[in-house]
């Protein structure tokens, strides 16, 4: 328990010290979505048709921005090796760090999604599935991305490699997430894709922290 508090509090404190860094992902999200609007005709009714894809891709790209830093600083300043020696469970530390990452970069995006969706002309009935889907899907990205960040932590060109490794792994998340919104747009039930998202989230939360811990150990060797 004290380890949970220690890691979580440290992540929040570090985020508070580098506020600009954590403002970038939500800002990036907002800018990507608005740029897409500028790319279309003014008040194009077609915009709503593409809104699910735009919002989801924007959200995932925005969350990618901050993933590279997840373990890099800890590896450089020696925190990682002290954690390895400390006897606390590394997979637990990974879990807490990914959770903090979601809170700092995923949650703001979930909260920003509804107003942006309104800008794109998404009908009100689709807002619920969009926000719920993002609430289930963005933690997947924090955990999948955390695993890949752990794989690439010691690499000089890890930053460029990270999105290439993450994106194929999140294809199902994007399909179900955007699919839920589209289903709601067409007046269909969005339940099934949301359940699939929940299933993927469960799998991600339970399995990936262990694999990420193995990757971090490997990165040290």
């Amino acid at each position, binding site marked *: 328990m004290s380890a949970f508090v220690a890691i979580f509090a440290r992540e929040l404190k570090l985020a508070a010290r580098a506020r600009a860094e954590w403002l970038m992902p939500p800002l990036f999200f907002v800018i990507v979505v608005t740029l897409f609007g500028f790319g279309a005709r003014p008040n194009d009714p077609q915009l709503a048709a593409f809104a699910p894809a735009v919002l989801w891709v924007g959200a995932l790209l925005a969350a990618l921005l901050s993933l590279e830093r997840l373990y890099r600083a800890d590896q450089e300043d020696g925190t990682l090796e002290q954690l390895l020696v400390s006897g606390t469970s590394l997979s637990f530390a990974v879990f807490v760090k990914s959770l903090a990452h979601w809170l700092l970069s995923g949650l703001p995006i979930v909260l920003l999604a509804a107003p942006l969706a309104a800008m794109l002309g998404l009908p009100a009935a689709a807002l619920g599935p969009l926000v719920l889907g993002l609430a289930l899907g963005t933690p997947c990205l924090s955990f999948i991305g955390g695993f890949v960040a752990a794989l*690439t932590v010691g690499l000089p060109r890890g930053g460029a490699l990270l999105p290439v*490794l993450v994106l194929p792994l999140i*294809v199902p998340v994007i399909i179900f997430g955007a699919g839920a919104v589209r289903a709601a747009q067409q007046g269909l039930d969005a339940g099934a894709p949301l359940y699939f998202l929940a299933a993927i989230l469960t799998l991600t939360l339970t399995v990936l922290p262990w694999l990420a811990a193995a990757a971090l150990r490997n990165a040290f060797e």
Partner: protein
Amino acid sequence: MNWTWFHRLGSPPSFYRFAERLAPWLGVAALLLLAYAWYGGLVLAPADYQQKDAFRVIYVHVPAAAVSLSLYVLMAVAGAVALIWRMKLAECVMIASAPVGASFTALALLTGMLWGKPMWGAYWVWDARLTSELVLLFLYLGVIGLHAAFEDARAAARACALLAIVGLVNVPIVHFSVEWWNSLHQGSTILKFGKPAISADMARPLYAGLLGTYLLCAYAILRRTQNELLLRERGTRWVREQLAAAAGNRDGGAHVS
């Protein structure tokens, strides 16, 4: 059960010698089977009554697609073995199968697109199998890219193994999600047991092509594994002996001719 053969095979020098003996046979068998498959498929087999000659692409496409998935499984299983038993040979097999698998995935995609143009009227259709194959290619390229980024061969292999395992879990989820998303592909024809939907003239070369392609992959992976082993074990005595013997053979051959 006696496992000594397994341990002996797991040691790099004995595997190297085993591969040295086996690979030529595999290569020749693959060549013969593929020659028959392509001649039989591209020349002898009758044209399809609906798809005309365009169907002939299956003699390349189907084996390539089958192999692309199998090799990913092989890569992930070899990766798991490498992680659990820390077996160097498994690391080498895993790394060796990645480029082979990626090539066949690319071939399956390319032939699928060429087939799609006359059949569907477009080179690219977002159907379940083609799209999964594309994601599979990304996964392969991810493993290859990750491997290239590491300096230490051991750390590289272990990181790639972890990625390959996660990718293996991901592949069926991708396939399922894409299928849910949209389904628009000719149903598979050869796996309908009981009532074959494909005539024997067409089927025989296809089976030969499948087997030939698998053997070709086995050949390529064995040879790549051998190279990887030589590279990883450079500086050890058996590699020096192996290289000295190879150099001796080459010199001997030059004298005779």
